[in-house]
């Protein structure tokens, strides 16, 4: 285990934030709120994959993906595969992503989050039914906003200010 920074992310914080994300998804969402609901679990999981890759990576992504599949009554493996691919992309771009301030980081996360949604779409298409529309891409947008808010919050929390100092 590598203590990269003394304050960031111990196990309690990681599991606490993931549990909170799962709880948020358990709320009885309905109507338009359900349509624009960001994928809390995915965003939190990718956040920890970015900052603590030794602790949260493929296995956690797979398990959380199975949980999301159960949650939505989808085919088992649909979200699991998508989340695993998302983690891979984050690990691939990790050093690059860590250089940016929250706004640019969120912009860099956009293709990753969109890619994850597209994988969900593709697997659902192949395994169950052709999709009835492109509503499936809306959560990607709200997830990007959520990523920005979380990244901004963490940066302010650690007292670095909203703008990149570089």
């Amino acid at each position, binding site marked *: 285990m*590598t203590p990269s920074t003394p304050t960031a992310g111990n196990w309690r914080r990681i599991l606490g934030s993931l549990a909170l994300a799962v709880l948020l998804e358990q709320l*009885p969402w309905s109507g338009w709120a359900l349509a624009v609901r960001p994928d809390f679990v995915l965003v939190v999981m990718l956040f920890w994959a970015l900052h603590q890759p030794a602790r949260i990576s493929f296995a956690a992504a797979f398990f959380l993906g199975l949980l999301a599949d159960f949650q939505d009554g989808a085919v088992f493996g649909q979200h699991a595969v998508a989340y695993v691919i998302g983690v891979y992309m984050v690990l691939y771009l990790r050093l690059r992503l860590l250089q940016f301030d929250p706004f640019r980081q969120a912009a860099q996360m956009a293709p990753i989050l969109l890619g994850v949604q597209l994988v969900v779409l593709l697997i659902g298409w192949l395994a*169950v039914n052709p999709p009835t529309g492109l509503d499936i891409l809306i959560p990607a947008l709200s997830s990007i906003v959520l990523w920005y808010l979380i990244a901004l919050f963490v940066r302010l929390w650690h007292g670095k200010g909203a703008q990149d100092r570089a």
Partner: protein
Amino acid sequence: MAMPGQLMFARRLGPTARLAIWLLIGLSCVIVDVRYHALDGLRSGFSLLLQPVREAVRAPVNVAVELTGFFTRHRLLQKERDALLVERAQLMLDVDRAAELARENAELRALLQLRTRPGQKVVHAALLYQGHDWFAQHLTLDVGSGAGLRVGLPVIDADGLAGQVTRVYPGSSEVTLVSSANQLTPVFVERTGQRGLAAGSGHGQMELRYMPSHTDLRPGDRLLTSGIDRVYPAGIPVATISRVSRSQSSPYLRVDCLPLAGLDRSRGVLVLIAEPQVTKP
């Protein structure tokens, strides 16, 4: 990605190899679930794990809804009560007539030695959670196999048919909505008696399929379950026709319908439990 404190040449799999392994596991999960339906045990496990969480999370939300609605609803409730009293008086008349009809019907059925209609026992269920799957619309209910639910039972709410139970867990169950893509419901048109097949088209809508272009259909016609499938009892309202259009390229009408049940509004539903029927040759 060598960091201080980490071995630079650590013997562990690279991210690409690990991605490949997990992808293999994930895709085999998909195949095993879709082709062989072998993961129902895992689903039951997750449901046992998450059911208490869902119940617990629902409580504060309900309290908040109650609190915000309390003051605005008082006046509304008074109005509604007056309206309900009038409606009750009218319904009492209908009840008398219905009791008379039921008695007569029972006698006639006895004369003809027919079975009684399926769907006599009713289980009330509260809606726990609306699924967020884009390929099939689901609801999660707070009753399961403990209350006698089975896969295939019809689910209704106050306004009409809501869907069909498709997965049953010990303490909860999943309902596929009538508006879910490719969910078929045998119906007949109330006004003309024409039988047909209503299919969900996603987006909370339905369509009436395979209606020849000379069929007498008008916007506003109600569709009721026809009961010939032995799944849904006959005569449950399903949808109203919202638009009828002809197409040059197809021999059939394009009939759009709106489901009557409050698929995204209703919070409580009824599950009709019918005894399994054995057809005798």
